[in-house]
C-alpha cells in the first residue's frame, strides 16, 4: 500500500488529483514564506528543512530527552518507531547510536527553524499582525511529537491486561478497587469510608428490587452530589427516570488541562480564550476521567472531536492525541463522535450546541465561547446554555492534576437573590414529552450491562483518583453481590492473584 505521494507515478497522481506544484503556504506567516527557496516544485524536491517547515517528516525526530514534552508523550509502555528514508515502512526500533546522531542533526535544523520563527514573531509584532503567531507556534508543537504506529490496535485487539500488568501504579489502583469489590480487605481495620460504603451498599441491596440488574435494564446512578462521600447509589425508579446523555467537548477539556507552555499566545485576540486550535494535541487522561464520572452517574456519554482527529494522527504521521491506545479504544467502542471540520472557535461551539439542542443533552464545555453571556432566569432554558465547565485542579506536574466539574449553575433574580439551578433540570429529562418524546428518551439511555462493561474497561487506563475509585468500587460491589453472573473484566476475582503479584503482595494477605 503506497503511503506517500513520492511513491506514486505521475499518472497515478493525475488520477488521484495530487497537485504537482509547490505546496500552498497555508497557515504560515508571510515572514516564513519569504525564507522558502522558490525553486522547489514538487514534494519530492523539498529539502528536509522545508519539509520540517511544512510539518511533514519521513524521518524520526527525537525531542531532547530532558524536555517536558518528551516525558509527556513517551510515558511508560509507549513505543518508538522509525521509518526508513528509502521505503516508508514503519517498524519498531531500539534507540541506536545512529538514531542519536540523526537526532542531533535534526535538532540543529530544528533549532535554526526556531530562530527563524522567533525572528518572524518579532517581525509580526512590529507589523501588528493578528493570527500569525498562533500558526507559527503550532509548527513547534508538531515537530516535537514523534510518530506512533497503529499496530494491533486497529484490529480491535486492544490488550487491557497487558497495560495493567506493565504499570505498577495502575495495577495498584485496580487491585485496590478489586479488593474492596470482592471483600478482600480486613473488616476490623477498615477505614471510616470503607465502613460507610459497606453499610450503604448493603442497604441499597436490601431495599432495591432484584430484577433491576438483568440486561436491558437502565443504569444505576452513583452520585457524589449533595456532599456525599462515599457516593450514594440510586436506582432509576425515583428521580432519575430518564437521564440526559452527555456531550464532552474534547478540545476544551484538553485546553484546560494542557501545560502552560503549550498554550497558544492569546495576543491574537487580546484577553480572549482560544481553546480551539486545529492542530492541538488532545490529552486523553482528563477525558477518561470525565467519562468515568458521568458513566458512573448513569449517563450515556459521548466525546466530541473535530473530524481531523479521526485517525488520531495527521497525514504526516504525527499524532494528534497523547495516547493513541486510549484514543483507539474510545473510537472503537462508540464513545466518540466526529464533527465536521471547523475553522474557528465560534463555529465549533455552534456545532456542538446544535448537537446538544437536538436531543436536549448535557454539555461539558465553556461558556466563554458564548458572546451573549447574560445570566438571568431565562438563560438556562435551553440545554446548550446549561454548560458545565470543567476546572483544572493543578498539582505537582501533569500526572497529579485533576479535572473537577462544577455543576452548580446559579443566577441572580431581580431581587439580587441567588437562585440555584435544580440538578434535576440539568441531568434528567422532564417526565412529560415537553422536550422530546419517550422513544427518543429511551434511545438516549445507558443500559446496565454497558455501564458495567464501560466502567470496567475505562478504569484500567490511568491510575484512578480517590473519587473515581470510590464510584467504581461502590458500583461494582453492588453488582458483584446482586448479580454474580456479570463479567467484571480486569476487576474480576480470577485476576486478583495476578494483580497481586504485580503489586508485590503476598498470597496470605488475600485471605484476610
Amino acid at each position: 500500500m503506497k503511503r506517500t505521494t513520492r511513491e506514486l507515478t505521475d499518472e497515478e497522481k493525475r488520477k488521484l488529483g495530487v497537485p504537482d506544484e509547490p505546496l500552498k503556504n497555508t497557515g504560515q506567516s508571510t515572514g516564513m514564506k519569504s525564507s522558502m527557496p522558490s525553486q522547489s516544485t514538487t514534494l519530492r524536491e523539498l529539502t528536509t528543512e522545508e519539509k520540517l517547515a511544512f510539518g511533514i517528516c519521513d524521518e524520526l525526530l527525537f525531542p531532547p530527552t530532558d524536555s517536558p514534552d518528551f516525558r509527556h508523550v513517551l510515558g511508560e509502555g509507549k513505543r518508538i518507531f522509525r521509518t526508513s528514508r528509502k521505503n516508508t515502512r514503519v517498524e519498531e526500533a531500539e534507540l541506536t547510536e545512529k538514531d542519536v546522531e540523526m537526532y542531533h542533526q535534526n535538532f540543529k535544523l530544528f533549532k535554526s527553524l526556531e530562530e527563524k520563527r522567533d525572528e518572524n514573531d518579532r517581525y509580526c509584532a512590529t507589523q501588528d499582525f493578528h493570527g500569525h503567531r498562533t500558526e507559527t507556534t503550532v509548527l513547534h508543537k508538531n515537530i516535537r511529537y514523534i510518530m506512533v504506529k497503529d499496530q494491533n490496535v486497529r484490529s480491535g485487539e486492544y490488550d487491557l491486561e497487558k497495560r495493567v500488568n506493565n504499570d505498577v501504579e495502575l495495577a495498584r489502583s485496580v487491585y485496590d478497587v478489586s479488593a474492596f469489590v470482592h471483600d478482600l480487605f480486613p473488616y476490623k481495620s477498615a477505614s471510616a469510608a470503607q465502613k460507610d460504603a459497606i453499610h450503604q451498599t448493603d442497604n441499597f441491596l436490601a431495599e432495591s428490587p432484584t430484577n433491576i440488574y438483568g440486561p436491558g435494564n437502565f443504569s444505576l446512578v452513583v452520585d457524589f452530589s449533595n456532599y456525599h462521600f462515599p457516593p450514594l447509589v440510586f436506582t432509576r425508579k425515583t428521580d432519575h427516570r430518564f437521564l440526559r446523555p452527555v456531550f464532552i467537548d474534547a478540545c476544551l477539556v484538553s485546553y484546560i488541562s494542557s501545560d502552560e507552555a503549550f498554550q497558544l499566545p492569546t495576543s491574537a485576540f487580546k484577553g480572549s480564550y482560544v481553546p480551539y486550535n486545529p492542530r492541538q494535541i488532545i490529552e486523553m487522561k482528563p477525558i477518561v476521567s470525565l467519562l468515568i464520572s458521568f458513566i458512573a452517574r448513569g449517563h450515556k456519554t459521548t466525546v466530541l472531536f473535530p473530524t481531523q482527529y479521526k485517525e488520531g494522527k495527521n497525514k504526516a504521521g504525527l499524532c494528534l492525541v497523547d495516547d493513541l491506545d486510549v484514543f483507539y479504544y474510545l473510537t472503537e467502542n462508540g464513545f466518540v463522535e466526529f464533527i465536521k471540520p471547523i475553522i474557528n472557535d465560534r463555529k465549533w461551539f455552534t456545532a456542538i450546541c446544535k448537537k446538544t439542542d437536538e436531543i436536549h443533552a448535557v454539555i461539558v464545555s465553556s461558556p466563554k465561547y458564548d458572546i451573549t453571556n447574560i445570566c438571568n432566569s431565562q438563560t438556562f432554558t435551553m440545554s446548550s446554555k446549561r454548560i458545565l465547565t470543567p476546572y483544572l485542579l493543578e498539582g505537582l506536574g501533569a500526572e497529579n492534576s485533576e479535572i473537577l466539574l462544577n455543576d452548580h449553575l446559579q443566577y441572580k433574580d431581580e431581587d439580587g437573590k441567588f437562585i440555584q439551578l435544580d440538578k434535576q433540570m440539568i441531568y434528567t429529562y422532564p417526565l412529560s414529552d415537553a422536550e422530546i418524546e419517550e422513544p427518543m428518551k429511551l434511545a438516549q439511555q445507558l443500559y446496565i450491562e454497558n455501564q458495567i462493561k464501560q466502567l470496567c474497561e475505562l478504569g484500567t487506563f490511568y491510575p484512578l483518583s480517590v473519587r473515581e475509585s470510590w464510584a467504581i468500587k461502590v458500583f461494582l460491589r453492588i453488582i458483584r453481590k446482586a448479580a454474580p453472573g456479570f463479567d467484571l473484566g480486569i476487576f474480576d476475582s480470577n485476576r486478583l492473584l495476578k494483580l497481586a503479584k504485580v503489586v508485590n503482595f503476598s498470597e496470605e494477605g488475600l485471605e484476610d
Partner: protein
Amino acid sequence: MKEVTVDCLIYFCAEKSGQFSNALLMTSPTWNDLPPLEKGFEELKDRDLRFVPKKGQVRRLIILDAANLMYGGADGAHNQGRQEGSRPDVLALLSVMRYFVVNDFEVIAVSSHKYLKDETTNFKLGLSELKEEGLFRTVPAMNLDDVMGLVIADWTNGIVISADKYRDHCQAGEYYEKVVRAHLCDIKFKVIPPQNRNTISVDDRHFIASKTFKLIPGGNVPISKFFFCDESETRYELSVERRRKGWSSQRREKVLKLLNDLISSGVMLSQGLVE
C-alpha cells in the same frame, strides 16, 4: 539609607489566652536573624505552635477567598469584610498565604478575573506572579468565585478561609450549608492602635507592626483539630490524595521564596519607593 516603615508587618505570638494569633512577616530576607521580641510574645518563631499534627493526621488544603481577604485586610476596612471605597490590599492576602505556607500547608487563592486588571488592587504585579506559580486561581465565567472555593473544598476536603458567611448561598441550596459547616473558617483582621505598635529595628531599617488577624474555625472546633484530617474521618483519603499530589518540600521552599520576595517588593511598590 532610607527609613522604611512597613505597613503590613504582622507579629507572631503563641496562643496564650486564646487571643490573637499573628503571622510574622518581614520585608528583609534576613528575618531569621531578628532578635527576640520583648516580653509578652512567648516565642518569636514563624511557626504557629498550634499546628502540630498527631500521628496519622494530615494537613488539609487551604483555600483563600482572595477578594474577601484583600478587602478585609485593607486599610480602613471594618472587621465585617468588604467595605466600599477602600482599595483591596494584596499584602493582606500575601501575609495570610505566607503564614500558612510557613506552617506547611498547601494554599491556593481563588478569585474572579477582575482582580487581575489594572487599578483594581494596589499590587497587580504580585497577583500576576502568584497566578504564574499557580497560587492564585481565576475561575471560569458563570461560576461565582466564592462558590468555586466551596466546591474545591468539598472536592479535596479543604478549608475555605473567608469572613463571608455565604448566607445567600446557604439559602439557595442545602449543599452549601453542609459544606460551610464543615469547611469554612472565619478570619478577622484587627488594626493595632498606633500607641500599641511595637517597633523592631534591624540595621537602619525600622519595622512596625500594624495589623493582626485571627482565625475562627466553624462549629467551635479548636484550631489544632480543625486544620487537620484524622484517619477516623470519612474524607481522610481525599486529604491524603491532595497532600500527595499537590505539596512537597521543594514546592514549599519555592512558594515561600516567591512570597517573601513579593512581600518585600510589594511593600516598597505600594509606598512608591520603587518604580
